[in-house]
């Protein structure tokens, strides 16, 4: 091993997979070996069996669908508003000066702390779940996008001006395309956070969703089901992350050159 030396693709996969194996091995050893009480931690096999039961007999797939829908819905609304606002803030300094202090403040407001308030305002329906995700992701997105756009290389902007671009052209033909890969990366990252918020929203006052199943299982001390739920969240997060990454790569081939 040497600092910053790249690792071969095959080795990378092997190393990545082996940690998962190690993780399950330690878990299996702790539970099957009787070191941890079954009440507190189910063993991997029970987890898989009850996971199958959840999916096959208890309609858990519908809960998963609900949760995915909420994340995507809330996130899409947040992104649809945050991208234009972030671009405008990055491009026009007075707009940034107007919104930035408030947005910086708002992004430290914990989304989960809004849940009681949102239940009062929006009830325990879908609007409340979407709002939690919106609050959790919107302000973060706006700030990060504004920074990406604002960091556009000045010499590229100047070059565009000398080629006859107007202010509108600078925004649409220089600022936006040059920061687009970074904006896409920001969206990918914040989508990951949105997953945390949805579960929190579902733990409190929901009648469906992965988080709801987890609270129900807690009442039954069904740690096997709780763990299965958590792992499902992790797997969906991982899959969406991979898909997003692959999509970004395909969308911005130029940003990959020389990396």
């Amino acid at each position, binding site marked *: 091993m040497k600092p910053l030396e790249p690792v071969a693709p095959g080795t990378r996969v092997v190393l990545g997979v082996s940690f998962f194996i190690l993780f399950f091995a330690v878990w299996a050893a702790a539970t099957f070996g009787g070191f941890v009480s079954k009440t507190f931690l189910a063993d991997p096999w029970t987890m898989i069996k009850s996971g199958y039961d959840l999916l096959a007999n208890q309609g858990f797939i519908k809960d998963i669908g609900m949760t995915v829908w909420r994340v995507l819905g809330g996130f899409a609304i947040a992104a649809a508003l945050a991208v234009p606002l972030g671009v405008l803030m990055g491009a026009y300094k007075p707009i940034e000066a107007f919104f930035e202090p408030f947005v910086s403040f708002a992004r430290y407001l914990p989304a989960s702390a809004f849940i009681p308030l949102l239940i009062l305002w929006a009830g325990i329906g879908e609007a409340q779940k979407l709002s939690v995700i919106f609050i959790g992701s919107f302000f973060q997105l706006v700030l990060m996008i504004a920074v990406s756009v604002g960091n556009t290389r000045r*010499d590229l902007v100047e070059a565009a001006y*000398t*080629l006859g*671009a107007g202010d509108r052209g600078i925004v649409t033909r220089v600022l936006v395309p040059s920061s687009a890969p970074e904006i896409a990366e920001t969206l990918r990252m914040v989508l990951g956070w949105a997953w945390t918020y949805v579960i929190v929203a579902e733990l409190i006052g929901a009648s469906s969703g992965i988080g709801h199943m987890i609270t129900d299982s807690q009442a039954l001390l069904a740690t096997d089901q709780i763990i299965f739920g958590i792992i499902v969240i992790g797997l969906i997060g991982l899959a969406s992350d991979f898909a997003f990454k692959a999509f970004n790569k395909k969308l911005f081939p130029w940003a990959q*050159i020389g990396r």
Partner: protein
Amino acid sequence: MNILNVSKVSKTFAGANGGTLALQATDLTVAENDFITILGPSGCGKSTLLRMVAGLDTPTTGSITLDGKAVSGPGADRGMVFQSYTLFPWLTVLQNVCFGLREKGLPLAQQQEIAHAFLAKVGLKDFAHHFPKQLSGGMQQRTALARALANNPRILLMDEPFGALDHQTRELMQELLQGIWEAERKTVLFVTHDIDEAIFMGSRTVVMSARPGRIKCDLPVPIDHPRHYSVKTTPVFMDLKARLTEEIRIEVQRAAGLVAAA
């Protein structure tokens, strides 16, 4: 006929205790089809002067006119090639060259026809669909030159365009630009700190003093076109080089604080 008129232009950069005077009141006229090289030590304000002509900086005093119209901001009539690599990395070479043409609203087919013609002139016909990062520095600057020329500006401004290139590539680029200029006779304002480059490229060479910059002398370059790289070893070239070396040397010493300011 003079197309560019720089009249009593000075530039002071704001800062503590009154700011820094970068350029003293400067007059410069550029005739149509002139190739003027501006030679000076680092920090003498030569790039500042060029940027003000481009409209990227505003003069503190004085005025700049192009074809009698006051320069108040950047525009397509003054094309620019920068020292740094300023191709848009998300566009292919061809799309980069089309950038200004699209801004003008030309139909795509016409944009591409013009762009292909200029790419051929800079020898990059086969690289039209490459991204800038896939090209060498010299190729990127050739693309930047094609991009600026394709826009058909009244005057081409070049800010040490070959400054970041290695010596051999730079000489190649000088010949290429010389060839293009001889064919098109585009009016050019070319900033450099390389004396050989200033003489070889220019029909007139303007020498600037150390900061705060001012025009110290303005000499015609009595070498006929077409110029072959071998002119660099002729007596006329050598004499002019000796003279300019002397002029620049004292300014570099001043800039470095080795002798008192004039």
